[in-house]
């Protein structure tokens, strides 16, 4: 009994890990394909059908390139930079609930790497650590452009984390739980948070763009000003890890957005589907298949947001640095605070009023 649970848990973690990597890998392909399509081109289509083997070719190229470390760089920190970036990016996917439960041999296993009652806090902690990879890499390169890029990344991430946290507080006030599983469960039945928190969603989305260093907030790697930003001195697979970590972050933040605002694995009419499946296939199989459908829906939402990231990247130009700071401190943070006040007032006064009206 204990052993089965352990094996299933290990398998879940492994599957989550591999899925994150595969999705990040194919995001690089998707990015180039989306870029091509938006610019009226074909995108990669030589390696394999539709260019599907392109990520493998890129990875192979990265592995076999010369692994160069500049003479005056701090060797250990230079290696630690991309490793940290990769590590923190992968850590965050552990608490995301990919589906409801999986029944096997009378045991119910949650489709989630770690069931934590402070899931969202954990995600925030890990995401905040993510900037260390960039900081350390940029500093260790012993290059002024790298250092400037790293400093930009650090100040940008700190600025936008404030607004992000504040926009999230409104959600937490509504759900009164820090567990991602609970937040998803509360959105069951079309009760998605996006309908209650549209302003909070926009703030959160903008901040997650900034946290992932994506266009229009990709100032840390702004090639017109900083050559290549924090990864100017990097090559080979170490550069590959930096770029890869960005795509993993993208997937994780897409998953978090769909968890927090778009109901996670919930979809309209899921109760009807669940009843039909359990009635026709029995409680165990029907339940498992319903869970799998929910997981598919969840990945659909996450993939849509990855597409959204790319779509924005190939539409908008980059912000100037003062514009970035103005937007973060003077617009998003006050807006987030107003959002908190409105949410608080609604939870205190509007919700009892409406419930009394309905009863």
């Amino acid at each position: 009994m204990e052993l089965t649970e352990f094996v299933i848990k290990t398998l879940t973690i492994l599957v989550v890990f591999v899925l994150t990597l595969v999705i990040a890998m194919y995001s690089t392909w998707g990015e180039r394909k989306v870029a091509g399509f938006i610019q009226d081109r074909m995108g990669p289509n030589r390696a394999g059908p539709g260019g599907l083997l392109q990520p493998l070719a890129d990875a192979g190229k990265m592995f076999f390139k010369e692994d160069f470390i500049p003479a005056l760089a701090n060797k250990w920190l230079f290696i630690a930079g991309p490793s940290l970036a990769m590590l923190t990016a992968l850590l965050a996917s552990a608490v995301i609930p990919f589906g409801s439960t999986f029944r096997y041999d009378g045991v119910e296993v949650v489709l989630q790497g770690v069931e934590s009652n402070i899931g969202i806090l954990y995600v925030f902690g890990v995401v905040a650590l993510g900037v260390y990879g960039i900081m350390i890499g940029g500093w260790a390169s012993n290059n002024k452009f790298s250092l400037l890029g790293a400093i930009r990344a650090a100040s940008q991430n700190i600025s936008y984390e404030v607004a992000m946290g504040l926009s999230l507080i409104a959600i937490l006030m509504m759900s009164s739980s820090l567990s991602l599983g609970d937040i998803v469960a509360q959105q069951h039945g079309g009760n998605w948070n996006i309908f209650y928190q549209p302003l909070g969603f926009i703030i959160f989305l903008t901040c997650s763009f900034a946290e992932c260093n994506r266009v229009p907030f990709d100032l840390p790697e702004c090639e017109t000003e900083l050559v290549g930003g924090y990864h100017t001195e990097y090559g080979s697979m170490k550069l590959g890890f930096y770029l890869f970590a960005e795509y993993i972050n993208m997937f994780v933040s897409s998953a978090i957005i769909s968890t927090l605002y778009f109901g996670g694995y919930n979809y309209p009419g899921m109760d009807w589907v669940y009843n039909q499946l359990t009635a026709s296939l029995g409680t165990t199989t029907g339940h498992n298949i319903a869970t799998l459908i929910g997981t598919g829906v969840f990945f659909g939402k996450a993939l849509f947001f990855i597409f959204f990231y790319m779509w924005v990247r190939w539409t908008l130009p980059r912000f100037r640095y003062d514009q970035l700071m103005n937007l973060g401190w003077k617009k998003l943070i006050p807006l987030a605070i107003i959002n908190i006040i409105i949410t608080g007032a609604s939870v205190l006064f509007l919700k009892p009023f409406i419930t009394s009206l309905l009863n």
Partner: protein
Amino acid sequence: MQLTNRSKQVSNKEMTLMERAYLPAIATGMAITLKHFFKKKVTIEYPEVKRYLGPVFRGRHILKRDAEGRERCTACGLCAVACPAEAISMVAAERQKGEESLYREEKYAAVYEVNMLRCIFCGLCEEACPKQAVYLRHDEFIPVFNDRNQVIWGKDLLVEDMNNRYTREAWTKEEAHLLDQKRANGEATNVVPRAIP
């Protein structure tokens, strides 16, 4: 002095609330990019799809045969002299008795080689040839080579295949000019391409 009425005065006036909100402008931009996402792509996927490059394109060389399948080249060397890149070399030989069905003239090129790395596809060999033997095809390229041995093309690659002859609408400048005039007047539209100059 005002040249056009398209110039616009630079203004630094305050943006309206709508403009400062960014989001409507961003939504407009995203709609534009999404429209392009579903547009037909302009790319021609080259090795699979080849575009017609027109009747005057100068592609791979061909040594023509006449209607009875005899080689037209008489190894006079005028093409080699005309060639600015010195890509053409040949060895002449005398036609023996019994070879009349193979070679049109009494002298022929026993070896005829074009160095494809040197050739600049200027078409001067074509113009120099008095026997209408050398042409640059308008419908075929030199394939990509990846070995030194593939660079120098001998007679085995250059001489025309009688089962798959190279056809053209016009074989001389005068003929092409006449065809152009006829087309401009709307007289001839469809000319059947033929293999013999």
